[in-house]
C-alpha cells in the first residue's frame, strides 16, 4: 500500500472515530406553541415564561419535582418552628448567578421583598402575603417569618413566581434572564427562538444537555411538519388531534401525563338564572362528559366531578353527583321556571379545548332547551370581560395553578360563589399543616362545590408530549408549569 493511501486511510479512520464520539448529541430543539412575552417569571403570568426558564435558568429555595413533591432547591435544608410560623433555611454554598456574582441570603431577602413590594408586578403576590419578614442570619442562612401557618408555603416557594433573583440583574430579567440554574440564557430571537446553554460553573449536578433551543411554532400542522422533518426534537404538549401521526411511528415516543389544569364550564353564579341551584343542576345533568372529552381532547382528558386534580391524593371522585341525564335536566329547568329553556352566551378564549368543548356543549344544551350563543374572543378581551368586569354568562377555561381550590372561597372571584361554609373550611385548610387534616378539609370543600354545581366540572387536561424516540428524561406529568431540562439526555 502506498504511503498516500495509508495516510488517507488513517485520516479517514481518525475522522470516523471523532465523528463517532461526537455522534452522541448533547443539544436539543424543543417546539413550543406560545412565545413568552418576556422572560421574568416573577413579573408575568404567562405559562410560556416558565416553560423556558423554570428550573432551567432560575431556581427557588425549593423546587417541585415530577411527582409534585417539594424538594430542596437553593436551600439544602430547613427547619420549621413548632407553631409553624418560622422557617429557617440553610442555603447551598458556592452558588453563582450567570453573570458571575455570588448568591447568598441577601439575594433571598431581596427577592421576597421585591415580590411583596407596593409596586410589585408579581402575578401571584397574594400567595406570599403570609410572609411577614425575611431576615438574614448569616450569608448562608435566612429566616422567614409568617403571620399565620401556611400548609402550602414550601410548595409556593418552589413556584416560578418565587425564584431567586439578584439585585444587580433583576430589572433586566425580562429580556436577559440571569439566574442560578443549570442553564444560562444566550439569546432570544423574538418571534423565532430562545437559546440556552449549559452553565459550566453550576453548583449542582451538571445536566447532560449542553444546549437547548426553544422554537416557537403556533400552528399544529406546522409543528407536525417540523417534528416529522426532524427540525425539532420534541414538544412537551402537542395538540391531541394530531397525535395519531406519531403514535405508530417508531421514530417518536408519545408521553401522556397529567397536568394541574381543571377545565370547567365557569358559570356566573351572581347572574340570573344561574343563581338558582336547580338551573345549575340542570346544566350539570345536560353535560355529557365522555362526549366532550372524546370530542375536545380525543380521549386524553380525565373526567372530574369537582375542582381538583384526579391524580392528587386528596381527590374525591364526584363525577356521579349529577350524571348525564337530559330528562332530569329538562325536569329541573321546568321546576325552576324555564319549561322552554332559556338563552345565554358562552364566551370562549382562543384555546382549542375551549372552542371545541364550546361547540359540543352548545349542541348538548340545545337538546334540553338551553340555547347558547358562542362568542369567540382573544385573551385580552376575555380577561377584561370575564375576569375583570365579570360580564359573562358562561365561559370555558382551564385553571392550571396547582391546588387552587381556594378560589371557591373568594366571593369576588369571577364566577361569584359566596358560601360562608366553604370560606371557613378554606381558612382552616390554609392554616393546617397536618396532612390527614388537610385531606379531610379539602374533600369536604370538594363535596360542597360539587353538590352546589358551582361550575360545570368537565375534565383535567392531559399533557401529551411528542419526543424523538432516542430522548429520555422528559417529565411525563406537569405538576407545575415548565419544561425541565435537567434530566433530559439522548440515548442510542
Amino acid at each position, binding site marked *: 500500500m502506498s504511503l498516500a493511501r495509508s495516510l488517507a486511510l488513517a485520516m479517514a479512520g481518525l475522522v470516523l472515530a471523532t465523528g463517532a464520539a461526537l455522534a452522541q448529541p448533547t443539544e436539543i430543539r424543543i417546539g413550543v406553541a406560545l412565545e413568552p*412575552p418576556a422572560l421574568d417569571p416573577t413579573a408575568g403570568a*404567562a405559562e410560556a415564561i416558565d416553560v423556558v426558564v423554570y428550573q432551567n435558568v432560575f431556581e427557588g429555595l425549593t423546587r417541585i419535582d415530577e411527582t409534585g413533591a417539594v424538594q430542596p432547591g437553593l436551600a439544602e435544608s430547613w427547619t420549621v418552628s413548632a407553631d409553624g410560623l418560622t422557617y429557617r433555611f440553610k442555603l447551598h454554598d458556592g452558588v453563582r448567578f450567570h453573570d458571575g456574582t455570588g448568591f447568598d441570603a441577601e439575594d433571598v431577602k431581596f427577592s421576597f421583598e421585591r415580590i411583596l413590594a407596593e409596586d410589585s408586578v408579581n402575578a401571584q*403576590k397574594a400567595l406570599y402575603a403570609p410572609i411577614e419578614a425575611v431576615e438574614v442570619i448569616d450569608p448562608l442562612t435566612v429566616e422567614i417569618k409568617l403571620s399565620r401557618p401556611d400548609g402550602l408555603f414550601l410548595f409556593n416557594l418552589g413556584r416560578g413566581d418565587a425564584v431567586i433573583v439578584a439585585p444587580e440583574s433583576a430589572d433586566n430579567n425580562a429580556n436577559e434572564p440571569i439566574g442560578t440554574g443549570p442553564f444560562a440564557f444566550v439569546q432570544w430571537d423574538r418571534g423565532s427562538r430562545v437559546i440556552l446553554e449549559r452553565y459550566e460553573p453550576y453548583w449542582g449536578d451538571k445536566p447532560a444537555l449542553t444546549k437547548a433551543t426553544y422554537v416557537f411554532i403556533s400552528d399544529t400542522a406546522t409543528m407536525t411538519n417540523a417534528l*416529522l*422533518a426532524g427540525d425539532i426534537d420534541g414538544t412537551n404538549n402537542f395538540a391531541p388531534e394530531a397525535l395519531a401521526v406519531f403514535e405508530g411511528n417508531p421514530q417518536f415516543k408519545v408521553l401522556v401525563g397529567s397536568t394541574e389544569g381543571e377545565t370547567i364550564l365557569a358559570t356566573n353564579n351572581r347572574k340570573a338564572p344561574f343563581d338558582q341551584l336547580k338551573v345549575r343542576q340542570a346544566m350539570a345533568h345536560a353535560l355529557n362528559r365522555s362526549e366532550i372529552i372524546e370530542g375536545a381532547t380525543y380521549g386524553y382528558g380525565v373526567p372530574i366531578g369537582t375542582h381538583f386534580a384526579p391524580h392528587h391524593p386528596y381527590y374525591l371522585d364526584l363525577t356521579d353527583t349529577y350524571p348525564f341525564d337530559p330528562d332530569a335536566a329538562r325536569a329541573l329547568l321546568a321546576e325552576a321556571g324555564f319549561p322552554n329553556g332559556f338563552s345565554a352566551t358562552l364566551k370562549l378564549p382562543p384555546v382549542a379545548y375551549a372552542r371545541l368543548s364550546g361547540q359540543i356543549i352548545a349542541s348538548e344544551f340545545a337538546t334540553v332547551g338551553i340555547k347558547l350563543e358562542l362568542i369567540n374572543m382573544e385573551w385580552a378581551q376575555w380577561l377584561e370581560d370575564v375576569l375583570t368586569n365579570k360580564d359573562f354568562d358562561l365561559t370555558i377555561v382551564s385553571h392550571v395553578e396547582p391546588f387552587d381550590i381556594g378560589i371557591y372561597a373568594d366571593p369576588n372571584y369571577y364566577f361569584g360563589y359566596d358560601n360562608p361554609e366553604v370560606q371557613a373550611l378554606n381558612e382552616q385548610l390554609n392554616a393546617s399543616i397536618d396532612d390527614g387534616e388537610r385531606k379531610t378539609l379539602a374533600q369536604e370543600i370538594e363535596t360542597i362545590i360539587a353538590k352546589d354545581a358551582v361550575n360545570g366540572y368537565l375534565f383535567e387536561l392531559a399533557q401529551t408530549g411528542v419526543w424523538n424516540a432516542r430522548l429520555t428524561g422528559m417529565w411525563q406529568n406537569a405538576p407545575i408549569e415548565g419544561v425541565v431540562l435537567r434530566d433530559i439526555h439522548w440515548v442510542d
Partner: protein
Amino acid sequence: MIGFALRRLVGFAATLLVAAAVIFLLLDLLPGDPARFVLGINASEASVAALRAQMGLDAPAPERFIRWVIGMAQGDFGLSSTQKVPVAGLIAERMSVTFPLSMLAMVLSVVVGLPIGLLAARRRGKAVDTALMALAQTGIAIPNFWFGMLLTLVFAVGLRWLPPGGFTPWGENPGAALRALILPGLALALPQASILARVMRTALVDVAEQDFIRTARAKGMTRDEALWRHGVRNALLPVLTILGLQFAYLIAGTIIVENVFYLPGLGRLIFTAISERDLVLVRGATIVLVVVVTATMLLVDLTYALVDPRLRREAP
C-alpha cells in the same frame, strides 16, 4: 415633471399623517387592558394599577399622539409594552425577514410568470396556450397557505431538501437563511406568477395586433423578432406597474405564510402584538408598513409618469 413630483410628495406626506392619526385613534378604541394581559388571571388590582402607571397609559390622548409622532420623526418608536425593548429594533429585526421574503417572491414570480406568459402569447390559440393559461387560472385559485402546506409536505417532510420553516438570522448563517425563505417564497409567488403570466400574455396579444408590429413585420422581421423588439417593451409597462403593486401587497400580506412556516416576520409581529394589546408595538409596526406601501406606490406613480408623459395628470 418636477411639479408633478412635488405634488405627489405633498400628497404622500398628507396620507402618512392621516394614516398615523387613524392608527392612533383605532388603537385607542381597542378594548382590553394591556397591563391586565401581562399580569394574568390571578393578579391583584393593585399590581395592575401599578403596571398601568409604569406603562404610561393614563395621559390624555392628544398629548400621547403628539409625543408619538415627534418621537417617530427622531427614529424613536417607543418601548414595547410586553417586550420592554425598543420597537424600532424589533421592527428592523422582522423586516430583515419580511423584506427579503417579498423580494424573493417577486423575483420568483417574475422568473416563472413572464416566460410562461411569453410562451403562451407566442403559441396563442394552440394547445400550449390553453394548457398554460389553465395552469395560471389554477395557480390564482389555490389559497397560498394551502399551497405552502403542500410544498412543506413534499420538499421538507418527504424529500428533506429544504427546512419546513423557522429562520436563522442572516448574520449567523446566510445560506440557511436563504434556504429557509425558498418554500415560503414559492408559496407567495404562485398566485403572483399566475397573474403575471396572464397579464403578460394579454398585453402581448394585444400589442401583437397593433400597427407598429405589422410595420415591423413588413420591414422583414419574423413574428417572434417583432414581438420581442417592439411588443415586449410596450407590454412591460402594465407589467411593471403590477409588479410595484404586488410588492406593496406582498410586504403587507405575508402573515399567513409566515404562520405556516413559523417565520419571525412583520405580519406575525403585528398579529401577536394586537392579541397581547401591545399598543406601542402595533402602532409602530403598522405605520412602518403603511410607509413602505405608500412609498412603493409613490415610486410606481413617479416611474409611470416618467416613462409616459401623458400620464402626468396623475396616474390613475
